[in-house]
């Protein structure tokens, strides 16, 4: 058995982290290096199929995820996943296939290999809060984020549906707030932390995203938050990239930076802005961080 103080994971970044969410990938790698947590990227991983696959073709969705689970098992160790949607799909696949022998046989035929159903799939949040633990996370902090008021945004798939992710309480999770308090930040109580941002409608029906994300930004602002923290590249895209457009359509002003969890934890662990990809954020976080003395 590996000793408890040596953490090592297979790593599944997901498509977004190799493209539009490059800063999430960068900050994850840098933070984990700093915290002495090993990450080995699964070689030649595929797209998990995300929402479009399970929307119209369950067998394809299950097969793509099963293939990725099989590729990850070759690396060994628990699988660390950064994207909330990939995390949800991989966990759902394990759940569905362990409940239904018929579906498992179909999927095994499609990928021509047995599906490893017992491997642990873990979101980065879980690794930081539980595997590493809040105490050790707190010890790694060199620059606590005192005075930064953060709205923790969970979105949909980190907690729902109750039988799948098992990350935290489905309607009142606190795992993000726990992590942020461990690194010295303040968290605000707000209404929209579990509401949907519009997700992949950003491509097909952006009007949906504008409406839903507007409500989320409004709620965060009303609660007095300085910024929002997310753990999903799609939520980030909708709240950050589309924020300017939302301000225009609804004649309002937020200038509300949206950080990935690894960026804020990385900042507290003493990593510099260039190692966290802060310059890739569309809503410029520098004025806020300078004002709070965090740079």
């Amino acid at each position: 058995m590996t000793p408890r103080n040596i953490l090592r994971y297979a790593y599944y970044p997901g498509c977004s982290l190799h493209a539009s969410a490059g800063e999430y990938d960068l900050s994850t790698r840098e933070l984990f290096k700093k915290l002495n947590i090993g990450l080995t990227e699964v070689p030649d991983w595929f797209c998990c199929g995300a929402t479009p696959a399970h929307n119209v073709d369950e067998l394809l969705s299950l097969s793509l995820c099963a293939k990725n689970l099989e590729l990850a098992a070759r690396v060994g160790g628990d699988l660390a996943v950064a994207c909330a949607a990939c995390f949800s799909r991989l966990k759902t696949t394990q759940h569905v296939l362990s409940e239904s022998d018929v579906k498992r046989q179909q999927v095994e035929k499609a990928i021509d290999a047995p599906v490893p159903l017992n491997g642990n799939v873990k979101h980065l949040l879980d690794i930081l809060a539980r595997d590493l633990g809040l105490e050790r996370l707190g010890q790694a902090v060199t620059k606590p984020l005192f005075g930064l008021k953060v709205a923790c945004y969970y979105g949909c798939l980190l907690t729902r549906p109750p039988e799948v992710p098992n990350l935290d309480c489905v309607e009142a999770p606190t795992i993000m707030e726990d992590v942020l308090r461990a690194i010295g930040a303040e968290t605000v109580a707000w209404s929209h932390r579990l509401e949907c941002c519009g997700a992949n409608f950003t491509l097909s029906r952006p009007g949906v995203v504008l409406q839903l994300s507007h409500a989320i930004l409004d709620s965060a602002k009303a609660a007095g938050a300085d910024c929002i923290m997310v753990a999903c590249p799609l939520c980030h895209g909708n709240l950050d990239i589309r924020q300017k457009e939302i301000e225009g359509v609804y004649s309002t002003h937020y200038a509300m930076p949206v950080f990935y969890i690894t960026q804020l934890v990385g900042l507290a662990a003493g990593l510099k802005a260039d190692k966290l990809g802060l310059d890739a954020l569309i809503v410029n976080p520098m004025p806020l961080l300078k004002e709070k003395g965090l740079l």
Partner: protein
Amino acid sequence: MLLSSETMDVSFVRKVEALSGTSVRRCFQCGKCSAGCPMATFMEHPPNRVVRLLQLGQWQRILAGRSIWYCASCETCSTRCPNKVHLSSIMDALRKLSWDDEGPSKESYVQLANKLFLQNIRTYGRQYELRLAAVFNVKSGQFLKDLMLGPKLITKGKLKMFHKKNKNMTEIEKIFSRIDEMRKNGEAL
């Protein structure tokens, strides 16, 4: 259109129940699913009515509308249902049946996006986001959609101009073709 026994077709509903692994008969119309649904305002039939129409065998009405394509799969309904009706799985099943038959829904943008997304996986192994957005704009005839975002995303390194294909593309092609074959042989839905 009035409800009538002529438009009632229960065999389709049985198929939905089999695919989704959940029973529409468990629903007693409390409406919690629609109350929590972030997309209900965009639907002509909110989630609880979708289930009611299924209970009454009136599935054509559901497929002809856009409700199922406006479901964001946020899982709020399934989480809150007191009778454990897994509504998001029902939505998946309805979309699959509509998709396979190239059903009559007028909501074409969401279907187009889904189609291009899946094609991208088969061609590249992973999502090539720039191509996905560009082809969507061309095929949907919205050439100017999000054009203003483009340059910003490119300078921020968020949109990669070029995309490297996976090295193991034969494996993904095999998965797609094995599934096609299983369906042809009637071994899978």
